[in-house]
């Protein structure tokens, strides 16, 4: 019989409270026969004093006892059982039957006097089974709570890490106004924004597939690439390709990044867009009220390899009164109480000339649409203002303290063949490499600009043989870009060669940058003359070089340009 409760590692323990010594002994004897370890109490008060939820598995309680009756004692014991189950069994029979009703509130079962060993055996086994189930449930509940607390903590930490990765490198721009709910950030929506050394504004709005930590996890490499490459002056095409390459490697097949990359170029009043799977954007003019719908032209990033990607980049000639309105799908899918989505129209209807704060009115219309009860926390809305006013730019001009390095002499050159020219913009790499040779770092932006302008001139008018007069109108400007892209893709010959040389000069140094190309050259005389007339869309590059450098000379029929940049240590 002692084996009947063998589910317990040690023998189960019972507390028996009865003022009759005979009953006490009798019950204890039967329980001991069943394998119990028994503790006895002579009245209710003693029972409450002896009781300890850690020590007992079952309590047997007589009803009528002196000092404290069984019902009161059971009530007190029950109070100490917060989330435990220890069965309290009332001993009934004779007179005490009349209390049964009251007992039911605090007790779990009854046994009748005289005791039957068989019935006790069956009942106690059943109690213990229930208690075991209950204990198991409590154990699981605690485990889940612990797990949840741990997960919450990890989630918070992940959110912190996410914040610092995505925001380190973020350059606040007066031209970018955004509303990203914290929920949507952790849903995998990202907004990245930074200026290149040539003071172009690079921008990325993205939305990862899926939800929660998984989705936002992939934001980290995307943000690192974006900020790293923007700081080095790469364009959005190279950045998009690099992010695509990385994500393709990292992400499982079913995950990708829908994104739009934009570059706002103050120099050319140009907005370049690479749209990869986000919902339509609106290019809105607050002067005329015109709305141009920008449709996604490319696959989302991270699906196919960068060599197959073949990104389409669109150029828009923009003025300061134009704004690009972008959003992720949360905003168009936001439903009202009738299940009707806010939709593209919901956004479009708020874009009008009378209302300068179209951004806020979109948000408030959305709030009204959703109603308080149905608030979904998944809203990302961004306005990119194409404002070229001086105060909105040059916010992050380098003010690094120049490091004094003795000027030295060196010479280096790089030849870029047509395959390289087709694939990527070599300027950042070239400028970075000469920065490493000498303490030219304080002049990085100027040198970057000069090399960029020289390179673009050689590429456009030399190797690609494009006519700059095309750029004299806004339409022609876009046509020029399209033609450039087309010719680049078809390029099968040609090269550009850079020769950089440096020598000590006065208190600083003299950097000579020479560029040669394989093109047909041009009439350098006419080019210089036309500069004065045509300041709107082209030709400003050479003027810039002249402002920054001491000299700019064309030779070899326009196939070679030489410019000299001198610098001094402070």
């Amino acid at each position, binding site marked *: 019989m002692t084996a009947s409760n063998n589910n317990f590692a040690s023998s189960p323990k019972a507390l028996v409270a009865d003022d009759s010594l005979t009953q006490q002994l009798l019950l204890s004897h039967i329980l001991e026969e069943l394998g119990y370890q028994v503790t006895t109490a002579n009245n209710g008060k003693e029972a409450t004093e002896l009781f300890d939820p850690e020590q007992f598995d079952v309590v047997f309680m007589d009803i009528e006892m002196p000092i404290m009756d069984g019902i009161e004692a059971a009530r007190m014991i029950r109070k100490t059982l917060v989330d435990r189950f220890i069965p309290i069994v009332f001993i009934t029979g004779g007179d005490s039957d009349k209390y049964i009703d009251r007992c039911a509130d605090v007790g779990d079962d009854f046994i009748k006097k005289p005791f039957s060993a068989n019935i006790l055996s069956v009942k106690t086994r059943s109690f213990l089974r229930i208690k075991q189930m209950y204990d198991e449930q409590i154990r699981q509940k605690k485990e889940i709570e612990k797990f949840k607390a741990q997960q919450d903590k990890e989630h918070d930490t992940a959110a912190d890490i996410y914040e610092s990765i995505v925001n380190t490198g973020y350059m606040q721009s007066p031209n970018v106004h955004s509303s990203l709910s914290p929920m949507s950030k952790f849903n995998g929506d990202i907004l990245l924004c930074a200026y290149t050394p040539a003071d172009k504004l690079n921008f990325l709005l993205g939305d990862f597939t899926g939800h929660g930590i998984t989705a936002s996890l992939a934001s980290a490499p995307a943000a690192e690439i974006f900020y790293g490459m923007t700081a080095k002056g790469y364009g959005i095409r190279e950045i998009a390709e690099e992010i695509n390459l990385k994500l393709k490697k990292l992400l499982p097949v079913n*995950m990708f990044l829908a994104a739009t990359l934009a570059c706002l170029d103050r120099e050319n009043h140009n907005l370049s867009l690479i749209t990869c799977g986000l919902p339509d954007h609106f290019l809105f003019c607050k002067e005329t009220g015109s709305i141009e719908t920008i449709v*996604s032209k490319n*696959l989302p990033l991270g*699906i*196919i390899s960068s060599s197959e990607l073949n990104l389409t980049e669109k150029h828009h000639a923009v003025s300061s009164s134009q704004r690009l309105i972008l959003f992720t799908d949360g905003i168009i899918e936001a439903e009202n109480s009738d299940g009707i989505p806010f939709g593209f129209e919901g956004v479009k209807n708020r874009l009008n000339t009378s209302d300068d704060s179209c951004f806020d009115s979109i948000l408030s219309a959305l709030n009204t649409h959703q109603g308080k009860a149905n608030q979904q926390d998944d809203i990302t809305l961004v306005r990119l203002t194409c404002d070229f006013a001086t105060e909105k730019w040059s916010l992050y001009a380098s003010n690094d303290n120049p490091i004094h390095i003795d000027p030295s002499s060196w010479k280096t050159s790089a030849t870029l063949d047509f395959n390289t020219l087709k694939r990527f913009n070599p300027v950042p790499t070239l400028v970075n490499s000469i920065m490493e040779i000498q303490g030219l770092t304080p002049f990085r932006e100027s040198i970057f600009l000069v090399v960029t302008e020289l390179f673009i001139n050689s590429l456009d008018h030399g190797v690609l043989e494009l006519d700059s007069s095309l750029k004299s109108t806004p339409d022609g400007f876009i046509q020029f870009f399209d033609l450039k892209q087309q010719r680049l893709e078809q390029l099968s010959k040609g090269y550009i060669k850079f020769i950089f040389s440096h020598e000590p000069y006065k208190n600083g140094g003299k950097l000579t940058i020479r560029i040669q190309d394989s093109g047909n050259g041009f009439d350098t005389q006419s080019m210089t003359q036309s500069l004065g007339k045509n300041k709107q869309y082209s030709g400003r590059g050479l003027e810039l070089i002249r402002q920054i450098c001491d000299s700019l000379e064309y030779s070899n029929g326009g196939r070679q340009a030489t410019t000299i940049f001198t610098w001094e240590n402070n």
Partner: protein
Amino acid sequence: MSISSQTTGDKLTISISGRFDFDLHREFRAAIDSISESTKHITVDLRTTEYVDSSALGMLLMLKSKMGDQKDKVSLINAKPEVKKILEIANFGQLFSLA
């Protein structure tokens, strides 16, 4: 919201009704796992699909991957205008034949 599939010879047709989103991913994964070696072409019938989200697009990519990443092996057909719009935004026409 459910997925049903039907095999005719070496062609498999998967029909998706209701909302095609993250809630369907187990069922869809099971459908992908059950594709046999002999299946040469898959048609995803979206006639009764009311909505697709980016998770659904991801699942379609898994399906394509299972079929060896070849464009002509998976067709998406009968999409309603609102569903088609989402497929077009993602430029899925480059990856699947849309009809």
